[in-house]
């Protein structure tokens, strides 16, 4: 939904389960995206725990954790959401005189819209939801409630198993072959697949260095850095402003993705495009590690149409430095708007290869995968 359309926004607000107050200093260019006041969101939702009877407790918990920012990363978010839907399906019972398929689909849709209100869904999570709805639609009518529910739950389990866990293992297997002794690998942000690749290559015994690049305000890579150091890898840590100074040492760049689109563009954490462009300028190969369920048939040409806006207040503070408070009253300044984008889009020219569970493919082959393996009989 485009948020600059007043009618639709009004209608959605009336239907909304979560009351969000809009931010005061909205950025005009991003009017089509939801920009909410982050300070009051979480307390509002928390106090509604007992009022929202229509939302299953597990789904409410997931929505709460999304809004609080407890979970980040598409794999984890997707898994938690599917698990919550599983629990909701188990507890579901068809009202009399109604058909399971339609009722359950409607219920799932309402849960998904609640989760969407807590935090906008990412593109690849849409794939997972479409899968669940397709499985529900394909349930034979002769199944009883219990049989249908067990079938759905095992389908969801298989999705998580095959599309996330086993896919990750295959990707790690493929990508580890690309790591050679003496390599200097650069990574950015917190991607669970890239972390697994680095650790498994280290376990096999390859000798390489890692450069971990980080950026404000999230500083996500610090957690990755801690875990790599705990396992004994030799790492270098720097912020994204220094990437052009360190790129000359780097031999390969491993990046994760939130979604890969049909024209080969990669949607990932903001800053990834910058890293990929600098790597391209230095002729360093960029490997995107991404499971196949994140491929989508959409096409994006820029980072503006489809994005997510985070908490602008996070930009105004530096953790640990109370003396840097020049932007303390940024909400009162009329001419000042803070923009905290979460995602950005890397054009396919800067991507050398995409490592997926179907193999290592060039970015131009993404529509092929979407077309061939997006068929229903391949999904499970």
């Amino acid at each position, binding site marked *: 939904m485009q948020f600059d359309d007043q009618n639709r926004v009004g209608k959605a607000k009336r239907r909304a389960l979560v009351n969000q107050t809009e931010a005061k200093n909205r950025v005009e260019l991003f009017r089509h995206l939801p920009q909410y006041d982050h300070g009051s969101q979480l*307390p509002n*939702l*928390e*106090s*509604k*725990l*007992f*009022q929202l*009877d229509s939302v299953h*407790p597990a789904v*409410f*918990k997931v929505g*709460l*954790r999304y809004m*609080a920012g*407890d*979970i*980040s*990363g598409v*794999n*984890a*978010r997707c*898994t*938690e959401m599917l698990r919550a839907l599983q629990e909701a399906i188990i507890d579901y019972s068809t009202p009399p005189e109604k058909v399971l398929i339609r009722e359950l689909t409607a219920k799932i849709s309402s849960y998904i819209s609640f989760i969407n209100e807590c935090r906008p869904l990412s593109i690849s999570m849409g794939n997972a939801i479409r899968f669940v709805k397709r499985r529900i639609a394909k349930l034979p009518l002769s199944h009883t409630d219990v049989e249908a529910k067990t079938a759905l739950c*095992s389908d969801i*389990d*298989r999705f*998580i*198993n095959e599309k*996330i*866990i*086993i896919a*990750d*293992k295959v990707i790690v297997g493929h990508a580890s072959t690309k790591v050679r002794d003496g390599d200097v690998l650069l990574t950015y942000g*917190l991607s*669970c697949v890239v*972390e697994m690749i680095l650790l498994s290559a280290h376990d096999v015994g390859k000798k390489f260095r890692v450069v971990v690049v980080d950026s404000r305000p999230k500083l996500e890579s610090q*957690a990755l850095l801690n*875990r790599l150091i705990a396992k004994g890898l030799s790492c270098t840590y720097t912020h994204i402003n220094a990437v052009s100074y360190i790129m000359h040492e780097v031999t390969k760049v491993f990046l994760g993705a939130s979604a890969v689109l049909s024209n080969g563009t990669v949607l990932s954490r903001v800053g990834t495009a910058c890293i990929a462009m600098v790597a391209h300028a230095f002729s360093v190969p960029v490997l995107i590690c991404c499971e196949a369920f994140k491929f989508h048939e959409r096409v994006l040409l820029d980072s503006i149409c489809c994005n997510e806006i985070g908490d602008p207040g996070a930009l105004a503070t530096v953790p640990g430095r109370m003396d840097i408070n020049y932007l303390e009253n940024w909400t009162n300044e009329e001419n000042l708007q803070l923009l905290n984008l979460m995602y950005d889009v890397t054009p396919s020219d800067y991507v050398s290869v995409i490592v997926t569970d179907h193999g290592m493919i060039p970015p131009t082959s993404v529509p092929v995968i979407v077309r061939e393996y997006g068929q229903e009989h391949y999904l499970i």
Partner: protein
Amino acid sequence: MDFQVVVLAGGVSKKLLPLVSHELPNALLPVANRPVLSYVVELLELSNLKDLIVVVEGKDTALNVGAWISGAYADRLHVEVAAVPEDVGTAGAIRAIARHLYAKDILIVSGDLVSDVPIGAVAATHRRHDAVVTALLCNTPVSGPLESVSSGGKDKAKKPGRYDLIGLDPTKQFLLHIATGAEVEKDLRIQKSILRSVGQVEIRADLMDAHLYAFKRSVLLEVLDQNGEFHSLKHDVLPYLVRSQLKSEVLLNGTPQAEENGTEKVISQSNQQMLSQILANASEPTFHLRHELSTNGSDSVRRTHKCCVYIAGSNKYCARLNSLQAYNDINRDVIGEASHLSGYSFSSHNNIIDPTAELGAKTTVGPHCMLGEGSQMGDKCSVKRSVIGRHCRIGANVKVVNSVVMNHVTIGDGCSIQGSVICSNVQLQERATLKDCQVGAGYMVTAGSDCKGEVLTKK
């Protein structure tokens, strides 16, 4: 939402004598002319929690409370009143009703809590962190009369016993240490393992435990089963859970997985581990996780559980009726600052006068006062910051300042009542002067008596 609410309404507490008696248990003590239990019940009703279990000590008291509840809330709420033997303590009360508890999480509220904190927020924090216990903390209320002329020394002696010492982590989400009541006077002991894992502990003396807890049912019942000597939730169970949070001995998942016999498990063991690794890496690791992961080669897997807190906002009111001083304070606050709690609408003079009350000539009723129905006041009386109950007969020239007068009280002419609590059916004859006294039910104060700081009860 899979929560069950248990209200611990107590019995006839010794600390509130002579206000409470066999006929008027703790829970039914009137605050601003409403039983104190009604505040808790209204708060729960506001949060859409309509299924309650009210635990009362003593069978007669239970009948009393049950009768009032069914009278007031018959159609709106579904309340079960359970009677437990006296002096079993809060832990014993929970043990007694254990078989009625089936939900995943239990919300335990003390029946003497007067507050407007949203209960959903405590429950949401509990769910979000998957905690074993979540406690509500609020700012310690300011106590003592505002115009304290004397008896400052007496108030100071009462204060230290009330406070709790709370240890929080830097993010103010987890409870690291709790020391209550008598332990506050002694040295503070903090677990070294907790300090090492967290790094920074913030000790707060300005926060008070509001006796509103959310427990995971399986853990609570297990702890109560294994430790039969635990008497009180606040003094025994909560500190036990907080102390052992990094060396957890409780079974977190209740009944063990029943699906072990499945022939084909969809997700194998190693894949399951990988999945939990992904999920763990995705979120900001709490100190529990960091502690678990740093096993240092020891064989036993260190399990941890989380004890969370919810700190009520400073604009919320929260107080517990557990002493005479608190009784005075809460009465004053409910018709004063926290007037939204009383549920009454204030007149233009900022007081509540029931339409059936009669005021004599030249009688002044100041702001922040309350006059119950059917009460009659004589001429030239003056009422300041007080609560007067129903059907009272107050003579002429009476001064009531900072006091609570319950129902059916007769006050003769020329009396002066300051900072006192007068229970129901009391008769004060002419020119009696009471200052900081408590008069038990049914007592008769003789004419011309002058009492300061006494407790007057029928023998």
